C-alpha cells in the first residue's frame, strides 16, 4: 500500500508543478524561436533556454521540497502511510520528472532546430554537453534541497548554477578539438567531448549516490 501512496505523492507534486513546467517550456520555445534568426539569434536563444531550465530546476526543488519544510506541510505529508525514505524517493521521482519534461522537450527541440537551421550540425555535440550540464546542475540543487535546511547553501547553489553555466559554455567552446569542429557542417564527437559527456554522466550519478547515502543516514526529517 505504501508503494501506491508513494506514487500518489509523485502525482501530487507533478500536479502542483504543472503550471510552472508549462511556463518553462513556453520560455524555452521562445528561446528556440530565436535560432531561426541565425547567428544574431544565438545569444538570446541560449540565454532564454538557460533561464527556462535553471528556473525550472530551482522552482521544482524550492517549491516542492524546501517549501514543504518551510510552510510546515512536511508533517502532514509524513503523516501518510509511507516512511521518510519513501517520501524522499517520491520527491526525487517527482522533481526529476518535472525537470525532465521541459529538459527533454527543449533538448529535442533544440537539436531538431539545429539540424534544420543554417547553424551547422557541428553544434550538436556541444549542445548535448550543455544539456547534460543542465542535468548535473539539476541533480545538485535537488541534492542540496533534500539534504539541507540552510537558505545560505540553497542560495549559494542557485547562484553557482547560473554563474557556472556561463563558465562551462565559455570553456567548452575553447577546447581546441571542439572549437575546430563546432561550426562545421557535420557533428564530430571528439575524444575530449566524449570525455566531457562521460564526466557529466559520472557527476550526475555521483551526486545521486551521495544523496541516497546521505538520506539513508538521516535521523531527523522534521
Amino acid at each position, binding site marked *: *500500500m*505504501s508503494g*501506491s*501512496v508513494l506514487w*500518489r505523492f509523485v502525482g*501530487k507534486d507533478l500536479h*502542483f508543478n504543472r503550471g510552472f513546467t508549462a511556463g518553462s517550456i513556453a520560455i524555452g520555445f521562445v528561446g528556440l524561436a530565436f535560432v531561426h534568426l541565425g547567428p544574431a539569434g544565438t545569444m538570446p536563444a541560449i540565454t532564454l533556454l538557460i533561464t527556462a531550465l535553471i528556473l525550472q530546476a530551482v522552482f521544482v526543488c524550492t517549491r516542492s521540497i524546501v517549501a514543504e519544510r518551510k*510552510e*510546515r*506541510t512536511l*508533517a*502532514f505529508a*509524513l*503523516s*501518510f*502511510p*509511507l*516512511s*521518510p525514505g*519513501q517520501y524522499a524517493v517520491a520527491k526525487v521521482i517527482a522533481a526529476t520528472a518535472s525537470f525532465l519534461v521541459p529538459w527533454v522537450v527543449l533538448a529535442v527541440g533544440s537539436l531538431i532546430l539545429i539540424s534544420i537551421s543554417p547553424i551547422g550540425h557541428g553544434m550538436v555535440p556541444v549542445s548535448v554537453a550543455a544539456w547534460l550540464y543542465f542535468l548535473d546542475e539539476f541533480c545538485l540543487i535537488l541534492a542540496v534541497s533534500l539534504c539541507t535546511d540552510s537558505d545560505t547553501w540553497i542560495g549559494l547553489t542557485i547562484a553557482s548554477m547560473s554563474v557556472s553555466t556561463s563558465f562551462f559554455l565559455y570553456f567548452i567552446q575553447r577546447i581546441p578539438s571542439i572549437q575546430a569542429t563546432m561550426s562545421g557542417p557535420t557533428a564530430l564527437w571528439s575524444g575530449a567531448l566524449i570525455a566531457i559527456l562521460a564526466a557529466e554522466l559520472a557527476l550526475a550519478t555521483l551526486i545521486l549516490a551521495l544523496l541516497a547515502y546521505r538520506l539513508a543516514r538521516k*535521523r*531527523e*526529517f*522534521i
Partner: protein
Amino acid sequence: MSERTPNGDSPPLRERAAAASARAAEHGPVIELDGVEKSYPYFRLQDVRMRLAPGEVMGFIGPNGAGKSTTIRILMGFVRPDRGEVRVLGHPIPAAQAAAKRHIGYVSEEMRLFGQATLEWHMRFVASSYPGWDAGYAKMLLRRFDLRPEQTARRLSHGQHVKAMLLLALARRPRLLVLDEPMTGLDPVARHEVLSELMDIVTDEGRSILFSSHHTQDVEQISDRITFIDRGRVIESSDKETFLERWRRLHLELPAGGALPVHPGVIDVRGGGRLSIVTTNAFTPELGAAYERAGARVREIQHMTLEEIFVAEVMASRKESLA
C-alpha cells in the same frame, strides 16, 4: 472540616479505564515506549517509558520545551531515537512506520495543509490513501466545523486550518489519534467545537487518543490517563482518577509552638505561624488523622485541579533534580 471537589468522580471514565486495561491485556498496548532517549545540543529526552492501552485517552502534559513534540515525532517515525524501543499498534518504529500510520490520524499545531490546494482536493487525496475513509462522516464534519470544501488551505484562518486537519484525520477512522497541541491559538468557540468533536470520539471505545498540550483544561475534559513530562523526563503517569484522588491540599491550624510531623508524600508545606498549607500526592484519610493526633486541626481538605497538580508535580520534580 470541609471537602471541595472541583473534579467530580466520573464513573464512565473509570469504566473506560478498566475496559482499556482489559483490552491492553488482550491485544497489547497501542503505544509502547521503552527507555527512549534522544539528545540535542540543548535538550535531552531521557529514558521515556510510556504505555497507551486500546481505547484509552492519554493527556500528555508538559510545559513548553518539555519534550512532548519530540516524543510524538519519535513515535510517528519522523525522528529516530538514539536509544530505546518504540512500538505503535504492534509495529516497531521507525522500521514499520508506514504500516502503523495506516491506522493513525495525526494533527499537530505545527502542521499545515498544502496552501495552493482546496480542502476538497485534500479530502480526495487523503481518501485515495486510506481505504477506511468515511466520506459521510467527512461531510458531517464539514458542516459541523462550518468549513467550505472549495476554499484553498492558504485562505483558511488558523482555527479553520486546525478543524480542517482534524477532519482529515478523523474521517480516516484511525485506531489511534495523535494530537500534538492541536488547540494552540484557537479562540474559545473553536476550542469548544474541537473538544466537543473529540468528546464524541471518546465514546468510541476502540479508538485510542494521545493528546498533548500544556493546557490542562483541554486535556482534563477528555483524558482518562495523564502523563506529565518535564525537561525531557516523564515525571508521572497514572489514570486521571488516581491523580485526582491522590493529590490534596490540607489547610492545617497548629497549636502555638507546634511543629508538623513529616509524612511521606508531602510535596510542599507553605505558610507560617499557626496556619500551614500542606500539599500531598499520597493522600489517605489517615493523613488528616495523623496530623490531628500530632495536635493540628484540619480546617479544610481541598481537591486539586489537574493544572494545580501539574504545576506541583513539575515544581517537585525540579526541586528533586536540584537536590
